[in-house]
């Protein structure tokens, strides 16, 4: 179903990409053109009325680190256009973590896929998307506490309760309860005194994290406002 949706909605984009010689087909671009009355909006609304749960206070016996690879973004425009929501938020709580992914081949060997933590945040500013200030948004992060296990995704730790971030969020139809952060550390910036700080440092020169690290939020917000007024250009490959 997902593929069909992608093909039908993004067909025009694919055509443009083919004509322009660009080969990166961003499946999530469909959100940029999705009507605001789509099912996404409804699921976003339902996310806002889910009651938060008490964060885990269990001390984990086993701490496991994992590592991940991400699509690269070469510009704010690429990240912005792929996002469903772009918001400045303050983290308020974690919902109960869950184990996602495929069932393991052998439970004796492997507990299964990643632990995910739904992170709950109140919206301070909206730069893109059908949501308002003071609404609550929920996004999944990889890692967290489940049972006696703590999983930590190196380079992209859980957002800290009480801290504020600029986040670029996407949404998969398979997971209607929560959004996710585009590109992991590329899609989340700590906000301190009105400036953005990359989650993972150092950053690679020319990467989106490098481009946004240290910039003022007002400056980035102005650029995003301009992008919201400009029709999307054909996507280019993030060669960095």
């Amino acid at each position, binding site marked *: 179903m997902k593929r069909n949706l992608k093909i039908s909605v993004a067909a025009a984009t694919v055509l443009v990409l083919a004509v322009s010689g660009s080969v990166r087909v961003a499946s999530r671009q469909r959100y940029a053109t999705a009507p605001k009355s789509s099912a996404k909006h409804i699921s976003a609304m339902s996310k806002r009325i889910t009651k938060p749960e008490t964060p885990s206070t269990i001390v984990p016996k086993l701490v496991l*680190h*994992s*590592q*991940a690879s991400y699509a*690269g973004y070469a510009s704010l425009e690429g990240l912005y256009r792929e996002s469903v929501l772009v918001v400045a938020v303050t983290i308020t709580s974690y919902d109960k973590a869950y184990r996602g992914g*495929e069932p393991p081949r052998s439970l004796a060997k492997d507990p299964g896929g990643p632990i995910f933590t739904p992170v709950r945040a109140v919206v301070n500013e909206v730069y893109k998307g059908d949501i308002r200030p003071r609404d609550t948004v929920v996004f999944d992060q990889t890692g967290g506490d489940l049972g006696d296990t703590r999983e930590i995704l190196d380079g992209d730790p859980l957002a800290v309760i009480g801290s504020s971030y600029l986040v670029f969020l996407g949404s998969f139809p398979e997971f209607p309860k929560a959004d996710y952060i585009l590109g992991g*550390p590329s899609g989340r910036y700590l906000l301190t005194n009105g400036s953005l700080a990359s989650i993972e440092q150092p950053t690679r020169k020319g*990467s989106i994290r490098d481009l946004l690290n240290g910039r003022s939020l007002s400056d980035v917000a102005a650029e995003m406002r301009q992008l919201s007024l400009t029709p999307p250009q054909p996507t280019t490959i993030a*060669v960095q």
Partner: protein
Amino acid sequence: MPVREELTSCVQAANNGVYNQVGSCLQYSQGTTPQIGRISGRAVQQSGPGQIVNRNFSITGSVSSYNSAIRAGAAAWTSSPTAIRYTEGFSASSDDIYVGSYDGGWLGRTIEHPCGGTDFWVGNCTLSWSHVDYNAPNVDQHAQWAQQVSTHELGHALGLGHPFDLSVSSTMQSDLLDPGASLNLTAYDIESVNFNYPNWYFGI
């Protein structure tokens, strides 16, 4: 000091708590030999000169359309001048790749057992097996990624981390999987894995 001795002494210092992170070793190394300052491995499974390290990998999951690309990704390590020989099969020590949909922005994600995949040097920990998750909806964005992500994640399974040197060309760069890049291992990759499994680089 020759590169190997320099890095070895740094790693020993890291194990003794003088340096906390492998990154320190990289910085340490970069000071005198920037071209080699890229060792990002942690969990060393020592192999002697001339020895071959046989490893299994398996592919499971709700999406099967990437299987051939995943196999090619594994073959990249085997067909390069390294000690690694990957063959397909599930076992207690296989690196298991699960292909499906995950609510995350990542393409692939690896957790190494029992060493935990930490960025911190873990002393004598020997890798047993790894669990790799393959996020099909994200990988689906570009055909090349199917193989690149496989190579990258199996690099983690072999004990490699993300390069500390962010300017180096490597399949192990975390967020810069350029779809136009070569599907082959880079010189950096080969030297890195040969640091963990010193067959070619330090051996023969």
